[in-house]
């Protein structure tokens, strides 16, 4: 029992990246905001307004929530490519339920159930089946997309009761979009879980060195499976948020979201080799991506160039993060 605690503590310390990596991330984020503010000012447009900040958080919120799950999976050294399709599947599933008269709360809980179930399948095949996570989740990505299309034979669903839209489009505490509330409470919760609970320490321990974790008594299968289930749950939450935001269920929704979520995690410094990185920084990563989209669109930069800039920022973020390692060599 005590040995478990020890290795957990050890790893929890190990996940504390040099302050330098965090600093480059935060400075980068602030730098992007200042740069956009100045350039926008020059062209007579407004970037740093309350409305734009609300827009950026709302527009990033869905990817930010999905990216919590993606980060957890990456921390164990795996990858979850199925989350985008799960967003589509969950939207169609909940949408079809709502249309057939199921109350909103029941539809949402069933939707979370669908997400957890896909996560369970992923987790079982990865942890017990020993199939590489890339392959398992690639397969589930296809299956979930197929199921989403099958729900209504490819037809989108629209015109939902007003209650659905309120989840995302209502305001709390005056003028704050509800998305702000969801994002910050989920991130605070998971930051707490990852740094102060045994589960969190075990995730880091397993990601850092699976064999050592197993030998020191971490129930590795259970930890790994739980991480995929959580990833499915966060993807489902993202799916419900998207459904509410658009009041529209599209079987192709969420296409490519897995890549945006992975991008948010790696910009935030979560190491793809597992065991290293802080969940809170994933939120910074997601907000950087959101600010880029918003800023570039306000500046009317052509769509093609926007994707190039995003690609450059992803690489630049990780490049800057690795500066410490390069120096050590």
């Amino acid at each position, binding site marked *: 029992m005590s040995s478990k605690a020890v290795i957990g503590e050890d790893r929890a310390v190990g996940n504390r990246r040099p302050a330098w990596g965090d600093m480059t991330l935060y400075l980068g984020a602030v730098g992007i905001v200042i740069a956009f503010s100045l350039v926008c*000012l020059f062209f007579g*447009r407004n970037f740093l307004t309350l409305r734009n900040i609300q*827009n950026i958080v709302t*527009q990033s919120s869905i990817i930010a929530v999905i990216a919590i799950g993606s980060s957890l999976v990456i921390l164990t050294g795996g990858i979850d490519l199925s989350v985008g399709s799960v967003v589509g599947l969950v939207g169609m599933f909940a949408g079809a339920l709502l249309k057939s008269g199921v109350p909103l709360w029941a539809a949402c809980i069933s939707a979370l159930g669908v997400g957890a179930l896909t996560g369970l399948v992923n987790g079982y095949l990865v942890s017990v089946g020993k199939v590489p996570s890339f392959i398992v989740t690639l397969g589930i990505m296809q299956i979930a997309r197929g199921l989403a299309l099958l729900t209504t034979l490819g037809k989108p669903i629209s015109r939902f009761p007003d209650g659905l839209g309120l989840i995302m489009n209502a305001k709390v505490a005056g003028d704050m979009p509800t998305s702000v509330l969801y994002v910050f409470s989920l991130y605070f919760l998971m930051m707490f879980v990852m740094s102060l609970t045994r589960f969190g320490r075990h995730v880091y321990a397993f990601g850092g060195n699976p064999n050592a974790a197993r030998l020191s008594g971490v129930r590795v299968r259970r930890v790994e499976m739980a991480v995929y289930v959580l990833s499915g749950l966060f993807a489902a939450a993202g799916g419900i948020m998207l459904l509410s935001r658009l009041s529209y269920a599209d079987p192709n929704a969420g296409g490519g979201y897995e890549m945006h979520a992975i991008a948010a995690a790696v910009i935030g410094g979560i190491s793809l080799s597992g065991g290293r990185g802080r969940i809170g920084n994933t939120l910074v990563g997601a907000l950087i991506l959101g600010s880029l*989209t*918003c800023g570039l669109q306000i500046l009317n930069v*052509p769509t093609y160039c926007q994707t190039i800039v995003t690609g450059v920022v992803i690489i630049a973020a990780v490049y800057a993060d690795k500066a410490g390692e390069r120096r050590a060599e």
Partner: protein
Amino acid sequence: MKKSSSIAIAFAVVLGLGAGLAQAGAPKRNSDIRIGFAGMTLNNEFHITLANGAKAKARELGVNIDVQAGDQHASAAAQLVIIENFLSNAVDGLIIVPSASEGLETALRKSKEQGVPVVNADTLINRDVAASAGLPNIPFYGTNNFEGAKLAGQFVAGKFPKGTKTAILTGIEGHQNAADRRNGFIEGAGDAIQVVAEQTANWEVDQGYTAAQNIISANPDLELVFASNDNMGIGALRAIQEAGLKDRIGIVGFDAVSEALNLVESGEFLCTVAQFPSKMGEIAVENLVKAIKGEPYADYVDTGCRVITKDNVQEHKDYLSQYVD
């Protein structure tokens, strides 16, 4: 140092905001007007031409236009983001080419809340969805797909004898355009065609290729293929060439993409149906500017279709070349 500069920026931003608000009440001159063009995509010729038509008209009228489109085809979520960003930067009006005809309820609701006029080009926004968003009368400038396909059907009826064995490649199941093109073609062609096979190829070249392969092997006496868009027709052409049936099976396309125009010119396509995307863009800008100024504007303009055959293909190419950047 850093702190003082950020305060300066904040101050300047507030000033900028104030200046923006001060302008709002004044009557609009063209040079003060800024239009947001929210496109479906800018990944294909058709939509690029549409956007370029809008830009050309904006230049002519001296109004400003921002053109943005999602990096993914048909993403309602990406289009909502674009429209939100337009609205928060106080555009005076919006042109929407919807990525999905039912997908923009939230975006329309936000435009309505802000009182920004919206016009709709190319793909019709679902009327019920628009009504639930509180905008039941969004002006529409685009093509009637049913009528366009009917023209192609009539062309076929004038060229082929009764009972010509025909295969139809349809677009994505559930797309209104897909249904309209299929039904329009069948109505226009009347009893000149006998439909022996019908399959969806989801608007894609590769799926048109495999679908046509299967159809040819099941129906060796096939005489005509109607592809609901040129892409699927291009795929079908490859399958037909491989089967050595090029001289016996005719292909009718739709959209008049540049590759299809080349194929019409070389005789490998019988015909294709052209829409006039640049005209949609021009008319949308023209009417939106009127709406912004409070002048009367058109609620609906059918921008028309035209069957492109060997005889008029050069003329159509010349028309398109005006709208290349």
